[in-house]
């Protein structure tokens, strides 16, 4: 969702090229129209160019290529027909059909949403809003247009973005198996050597962090807890973070404790790299793949997180951040694995009840 699919990049270039051309066309033709009409005209041209640009990279999918070509040509034609009597209703119908059709494509799994697709959706939605603005002085259809603008644009925006997001969460790609996290690319199946290396890392880490079963020892060693209003808490050692230890079992940057009614119970360690995008060594191949939390909304109030929306917005008071790559080692029996991204909540619950 936050990447650009290789076969969609050409659409982005086509859309960017269309912007100055559409503005130039308006100027050359001396079309004296309102700002809403000229805005809608330019946005239609951009959306059309994006769709035309995608025809070549989708030539193996006949139906999709035909739809892109037809849709793109119609958009471009409509961008130049702003004085035509039926310009508005035809453009509104085409945009609505395109958006609903695209949602259908996503639901059926025929396409995966990416930045070009979402940006084109936003361009189309804005064009729809501009087209529905009533022309001053024309009383007929005024109320209908305002109603359509007040209902159709918000509704279509919500439906389109919800579809994009639900699809992204329900059908993540191999590198986004976890919401808000990018997993390091590795080979698919661990080799015997990688399995042995992973077990060695696990054993050494489990032994090294054993003294921190008592949280006071961890505190004395420089680990400090994050917010404790959640079932688990990461205790970070800023000295180890700054020192830049890389996958050193004796110096894990973080410890993870379950917050139980008996006090903090050590359940694992966390290794962290210093820089965003710099994945660490991966001795266990797919078993010890690092992960990096991307596009998460972080608020300093309570150090809490949520996920950034497809429209790249975070709640007020939260900012979009990306964390440096990290690798967890779980010393309790975690169904997801010893190096899984998350601890199973059921495990934490069992520890709490023990």
């Amino acid at each position, binding site marked *: 969702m936050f990447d650009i699919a290789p076969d969609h990049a050409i659409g982005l270039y086509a859309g960017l090229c269309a912007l100055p051309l559409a503005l130039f066309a308006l100027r050359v033709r001396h079309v004296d129209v309102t700002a*809403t009409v000229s805005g809608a005209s330019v946005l239609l041209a951009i959306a059309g160019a994006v769709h035309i640009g995608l025809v070549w990279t989708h030539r193996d999918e006949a139906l999709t290529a035909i739809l892109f070509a037809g849709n793109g040509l119609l958009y471009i034609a409509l961008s130049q027909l702003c004085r035509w009597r039926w310009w508005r209703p035809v453009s509104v119908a085409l945009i609505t059909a395109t958006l609903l059709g695209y949602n259908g494509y996503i639901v059926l799994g025929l396409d995966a949403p990416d930045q070009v697709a979402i940006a084109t959706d936003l361009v189309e939605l804005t064009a729809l*809003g501009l087209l529905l603005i009533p022309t001053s002085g024309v009383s007929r259809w005024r109320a209908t247009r305002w109603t359509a603008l007040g209902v159709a644009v918000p509704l279509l925006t919500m439906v389109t973005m919800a579809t994009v997001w639900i699809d992204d969460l329900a059908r993540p790609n191999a590198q986004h198996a976890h919401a808000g996290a990018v997993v390091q690319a590795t080979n698919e199946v661990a080799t015997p050597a990688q399995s042995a290396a992973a077990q060695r890392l696990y054993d050494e880490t489990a032994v090294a962090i054993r003294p921190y079963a008592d949280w006071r020892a961890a505190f004395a060693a420089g680990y400090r807890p994050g917010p404790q209003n959640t079932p688990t808490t990461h205790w970070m050692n800023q000295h180890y973070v700054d020192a830049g230890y890389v996958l050193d079992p004796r110096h894990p940057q973080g410890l993870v404790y379950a917050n139980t009614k008996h006090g903090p119970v050590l359940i694992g360690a966390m290794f962290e790299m210093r820089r965003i995008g710099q994945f660490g060594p991966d001795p266990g191949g797919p078993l010890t793949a690092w992960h990096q939390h991307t596009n998460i909304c972080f608020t300093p109030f309570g150090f809490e997180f949520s996920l950034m929306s497809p429209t790249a917005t975070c709640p007020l008071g939260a900012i979009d951040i990306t964390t440096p790559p990290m690798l967890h080692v779980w010393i309790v029996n975690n169904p997801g694995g010893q190096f899984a991204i998350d601890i199973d909540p059921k495990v934490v619950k069992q520890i709490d009840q023990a």
Partner: protein
Amino acid sequence: MTRPETNSRPEAAFVLLVMQAMFWLIAGISAAPFGAAGEIHMAGLAVLTMLLAIATVLCALGVLWRKRRARALAIALEVVCLFGSAVLWLLPVGFNTGLVSTLVNAALPLAIIVLLRKDQQAFS
């Protein structure tokens, strides 16, 4: 005589402000499940964000009705948004600088400011 092109700038700004309000509404709704899962502060921020979305719609209506105060408020809001985006772009926090983020967090506020910067006399 005022050219027709300048007359509908507030209407165009209205559409963009409504779009921006929708984006904030989506952000607020998306944070709500985290609030429900125990993140108390995130729940508060979700509510605040939804209130901001409503306030933005009201501001958009004010712009549509050519209210001078609404115009000033909208411009101030967009300047704050642009400033915030610029700061996040510069800070090494891994802020998303993708296409949609650029459109929503930079191009959209800039377009609203450009649309509202002229025609001050059209507002009452």
